[in-house]
């Protein structure tokens, strides 16, 4: 596709449910990032992949959060036993070689998660 595609766009979960958020990066982009954006805040880094390798997961807030990118393309962010504080927009971004080294990312429109 032309841009980064994320699904679902909106997800409502009951507290304790597991959720999976999908990201389809721009074709050919080897770098993929997940960010969490709470209401009224800037995005906060969660994790970073280069191809299928997860090079940095230091931003994941707890062991309930897990991300994978098994074939180096599509990525899934999974949140187990969701809590109300997980409510946020989850942004995925990808970047081409070279641009990732400069910080220029292409963001998707995000998945808005609401935990009741």
């Amino acid at each position, binding site marked *: 596709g032309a*841009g*980064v595609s994320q699904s679902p766009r909106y997800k409502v979960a009951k507290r304790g449910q597991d959720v999976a958020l999908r990201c389809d990066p721009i074709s050919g982009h080897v*770098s993929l*990032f997940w*960010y969490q954006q709470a209401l*009224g*805040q*800037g*995005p*906060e*880094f969660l994790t*970073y992949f280069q191809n299928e390798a997860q*090079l*940095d997961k*230091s*931003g994941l807030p707890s062991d309930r959060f897990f991300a994978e990118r098994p074939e180096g393309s599509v990525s899934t962010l999974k949140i187990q036993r969701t809590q109300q504080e997980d409510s946020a*927009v989850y*942004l995925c971004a990808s970047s081409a070689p070279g641009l*990732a*080294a*400069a*910080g*220029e*990312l*292409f*963001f*998707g*429109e*995000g998945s808005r998660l609401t935990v009741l």
Partner: protein
Amino acid sequence: EDKVVQSPLSLVVHEGDTVTLNCSYEVTNFRSLLWYKQEKKAPTFLFMLTSSGIEKKSGRLSSILDKKELFSILNITATQTGDSAIYLCARFETSGSRLTFGEGTQLTVNP
């Protein structure tokens, strides 16, 4: 502290006004400073700044970095209603590949 601080947090102006958005930071060791525009959901890239004192320009938008005083500004001249958005400043860290974002400035341009 390791924060990126933006000011003002919100700003309301009339079409045609000029605005200056501020971004300050405390860490001196970083790769670059970036500005993004966020309309609706997806932030879009505006500028990347690495060198102090060199202005980057794109149409009515311009930005500059002052590494000595640890801040950057984003200027928008002759604002239009389409400039209404959240403007995010981010520091690209030296280690790893993470961006550290500020809270953003919500700009509203009224006709």
